[in-house]
C-alpha cells in the first residue's frame, strides 16, 4: 500500500492544482508538501522492507526490492531538495512564468520516475521513462528563449530515439529467447525472465542487448549519442537541470542495472566490452570538452558525461567494482544536484554563465561559493566524499581484474579533467573580485538543500549506517558483484 502511495502522492499534488485556491503562489506549497510526504513515504518503505526480500504489487507490475528501495529513497531526497530550492526561488520572485504548469509537470514527471523505479515489467518501465521524458521536456524551455526551445527539442528527439532503440532491443531479446517459435511463454516481468533457462538464439539476443545498451546510453548521455546533454543541461532552468541529471538519470541507470543484472545471470562477462568502449569514449569526449569550456554550467554538463562514462566503465569491469559503481551512482546524484542548484544561484546573481566574467565569488556570495567549491571537490572525486570512495573501489578493481591499460588511461584522463576543471573554476571562487567594495549579500536559505546534500556526500565517504551499506551491497550483488 505505501509503495503505491509513493506514486499516487505526486499525481494527487498535480491534480490539486486544478482547484483555483491551490493555484498561483499556493502551488509552491503543493509542490513542497507533496515532495515532503513523498520523502516520508519513501523512508517508510525503506524502514518496513526486509533485507533480501522482494514484495510484488498490482499483479506483479511493481516490486519492492533492494534496487527499488535504494533508488526510491535517492530520488525522493534529491527531489525534495530541489523543491526546497524552487520554493525559495518562487518566494524571491526569481522564477517568472506560469507557476502551476511548472509545478504540475514537475510532479507528474516525478510520479513517472517513482513508477519506473518500482516497476517489475521491462516494457512498462519503458512506458514510464517515455512519459517522464514527455513531462519534463517542455520545462527545459520554461520561461526561456529560442536556444532553450531548440535544446529541448533536441533532447526530446534523442530521448525518443534512444528509448525506441531500447524498446526494440527488448523485443529482439524476447525473439532470441525462442518466443517466436513458441518454445515457452514469453514474459517481460523481471522475475519471470530470471526463470528462463537460456537466452536462445545468439544473433537475436546479441542484437537486442546492443540496442538496449545503445538506447539507454543515449538517454544517459554516453558517447556517441551525447550531444543533446550539454545543450539541455546548459539551457534548462537549474532545478530542471538537477531533475534531469539527478532524478531521471538515476531512473535510467536503474533500468540499465536491471538489464545488466538479468543478463549477467546467464553470462557474467556479457556486454563488458561494449560498456567499457562506451565508457572510455565518453570520458575522452568529456575531457576534451572540459578543457575548452568557458561556461561553468556547460562544464558541469560535460562532467556529467564523464560520470556516465565512469559508471559504464565500472559496470563493464564488473565483479567487485559493482559496489563502487553503486556508491558512485548514489554520490553522483547529490553532486550534480548541488552543482546545478548552486549554478542557479550564481547565474541569478551575476547574470552570466561565462567563467571568464566571474572572479572572487567567495566575497560576494559566501554560501554559494562554499557549496560550489565543495561540490567541485566531490565532482573531481576528492576525499572525504562518497564519489571518492566509489572511484577508488572501481579503480582498485580495474587493477585486480588486470585492466591495467584502462586503469592508466583513466588515471591520465582524470588528471587532465582535474587540472582543466580546477584551472577554470577555482579563480571564479578565489580570484580577485572586480569590485572589492562589494558586500556579501546572500540568504543561507538559498543553499539549504545544497548543504544537506553535501552532508550526505560526506557521510557516504566517511560513515554510512549498516542498513544503507547492506542495501548498496545487495544492489551490487544483483549486478554480479559483492
Amino acid at each position, binding site marked *: 500500500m505505501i509503495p503505491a502511495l509513493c506514486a499516487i502522492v505526486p499525481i494527487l499534488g498535480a491534480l490539486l492544482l486544478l482547484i483555483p485556491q491551490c493555484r498561483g503562489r499556493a502551488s509552491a506549497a503543493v509542490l513542497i508538501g507533496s515532495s515532503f510526504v513523498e520523502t516520508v513515504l519513501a523512508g517508510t518503505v525503506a524502514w518496513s522492507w526486509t533485507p533480501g526480500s522482494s514484495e510484488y504489487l498490482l499483479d506483479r507490475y511493481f516490486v519492492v526490492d533492494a534496487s527499488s528501495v535504494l533508488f526510491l529513497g535517492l530520488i525522493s531526497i534529491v527531489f525534495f531538495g530541489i523543491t526546497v530550492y524552487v520554493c525559495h526561488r518562487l518566494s524571491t520572485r526569481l522564477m517568472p512564468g506560469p507557476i502551476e504548469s511548472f509545478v504540475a509537470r514537475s510532479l507528474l514527471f516525478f510520479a513517472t520516475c517513482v513508477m519506473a523505479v518500482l516497476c517489475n*515489467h521491462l516494457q*512498462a518501465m519503458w512506458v514510464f521513462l*517515455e512519459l517522464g521524458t514527455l513531462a519534463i521536456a517542455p520545462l527545459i524551455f520554461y520561461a526561456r528563449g529560442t536556444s532553450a*526551445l531548440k535544446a*529541448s527539442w533536441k533532447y526530446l528527439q534523442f530521448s525518443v530515439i534512444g528509448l525506441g532503440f531500447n524498446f526494440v532491443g527488448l523485443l529482439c531479446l524476447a525473439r532470441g529467447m525462442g518466443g517466436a517459435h513458441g518454445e515457452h511463454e514469453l514474459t517481460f516481468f523481471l522475475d519471470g525472465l530470471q526463470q528462463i533457462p537460456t537466452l536462445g538464439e545468439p544473433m537475436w539476443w546479441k542484437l537486442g542487448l546492443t540496442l538496449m545498451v545503445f538506447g539507454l546510453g543515449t538517454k544517459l548521455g554516453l558517447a556517441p549519442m551525447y550531444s543533446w546533454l550539454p545543450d539541455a543541461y546548459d539551457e534548462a532552468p537549474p532545478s530542471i537541470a538537477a531533475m534531469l541529471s539527478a532524478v531521471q538519470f538515476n531512473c535510467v541507470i536503474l533500468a540499465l542495472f536491471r538489464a545488466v543484472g538479468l543478463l549477467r545471470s546467464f553470462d557474467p562477462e556479457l556486454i563488458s566490452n561494449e560498456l567499457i568502449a562506451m565508457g572510455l569514449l565518453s570520458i575522452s569526449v568529456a575531457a576534451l570538452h572540459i578543457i575548452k569550456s568557458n561556461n561553468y554550467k556547460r562544464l558541469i554538463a560535460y562532467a556529467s558525461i564523464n560520470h556516465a562514462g565512469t559508471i559504464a566503465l565500472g559496470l563493464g569491469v564488473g565483479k567487485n567494482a559493482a559496489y563502487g559503481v553503486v556508491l558512485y551512482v548514489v554520490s553522483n546524484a547529490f553532486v550534480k544536484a548541488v552543482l546545478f542548484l548552486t549554478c542557479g544561484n550564481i547565474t541569478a546573481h551575476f547574470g552570466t554563465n561565462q567563467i571568464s566574467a566571474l572572479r572572487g565569488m567567495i566575497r560576494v556570495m559566501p554560501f554559494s561559493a562554499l557549496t560550489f567549491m565543495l561540490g567541485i571537490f566531490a565532482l573531481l572525486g576528492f576525499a572525504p566524499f562518497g564519489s571518492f570512495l566509489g572511484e577508488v573501489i572501481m579503480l582498485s578493481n580495474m587493477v585486480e581484474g588486470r585492466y591495467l591499460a584502462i586503469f592508466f588511461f583513466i588515471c591520465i584522463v582524470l588528471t587532465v579533467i582535474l587540472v582543466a576543471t580546477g584551472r577554470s573554476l577555482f579563480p571564479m571562487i578565489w580570484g580577485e573580485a572586480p569590485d572589492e567594495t562589494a558586500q556579501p549579500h546572500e540568504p543561507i536559505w538559498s543553499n539549504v538543500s545544497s548543504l544537506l546534500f553535501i552532508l550526505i556526500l560526506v557521510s557516504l565517504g566517511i560513515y554510512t549506517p549498516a542498513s544503507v551499506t547492506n542495501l548498496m551491497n545487495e544492489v551490487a550483488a544483483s549486478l554480479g558483484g559483492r
Partner: protein
Amino acid sequence: MTNLFIAYVAAFFLPLLFHSWRVAVLGLGAQGLLLGLILAAHDQPMSPQLMFEYASLFLIRAVFIPWCLFRWMKGHELPPDFSLIAKNLIQWMIAFLLLVEAFVFGAEMSPGDPHEALQVGTAAGSVLIGMLVLANQTHPLGQIVGLFMVEGGFTLVELLSPHIMPFPVAIGTSLAVVIFVLTCGQYLRRLLAISGSVAEEKIVP
C-alpha cells in the same frame, strides 16, 4: 503479406523523391494503415488486446498523426523546394544503399524464414531511412516525419513478436504515442513561430 511489405517500403521511400511536405505526411498515414493491415494478416485470434492494437494502429497512426500534422501546418507555407533529404544523386544513392543493406541484414537475421527476413528488412529500412531524414533535416516538420518513420520501423519489429503486450502496458504505450504527438505539435508551433520571426527580421532592414 509480401505485397504489404512492398507497399510499406514504398510508403516510406517514395516521399523522399517528392518535394512536398503533404506527400511526406500522407506517407506517414499510409505507413500507419499498412501496419494495421500487416497485423490483420497475422490471423491472430480476436481478443480485447488485439482490438486495442488495431485501434491504436488505424486510428492513431493512420488518421490522428497525419490529421494533426495537416492541422498544425495550416497557414504555414513551407519552402516550395521542401524535401525530406537533400536533392542530389549522392543522397538518393545513400538512401538506396541503406535500403539494400537493411534487407541484407534481414536475411542475415532470419536465414531460414524468408517471411521474417522480409519483415526485419522492412523494419530496418524504415529505421535507417528515418535516421537519414533526421540527419538531413533542419525543419521541425521534416524532423517529425523522420521521427515517425523511425517509430514506424520500431512498431513493425513489435508486430514481429507473437507476444501480445499485457493490456495495461498496451494502453500505456498508446498513451505515450498520443502524448508524444501532441508534444510534437507544441514544439512545431513554437519552432515555426521562431522561423517566422527570423524571416521577418531578415525582411525588415
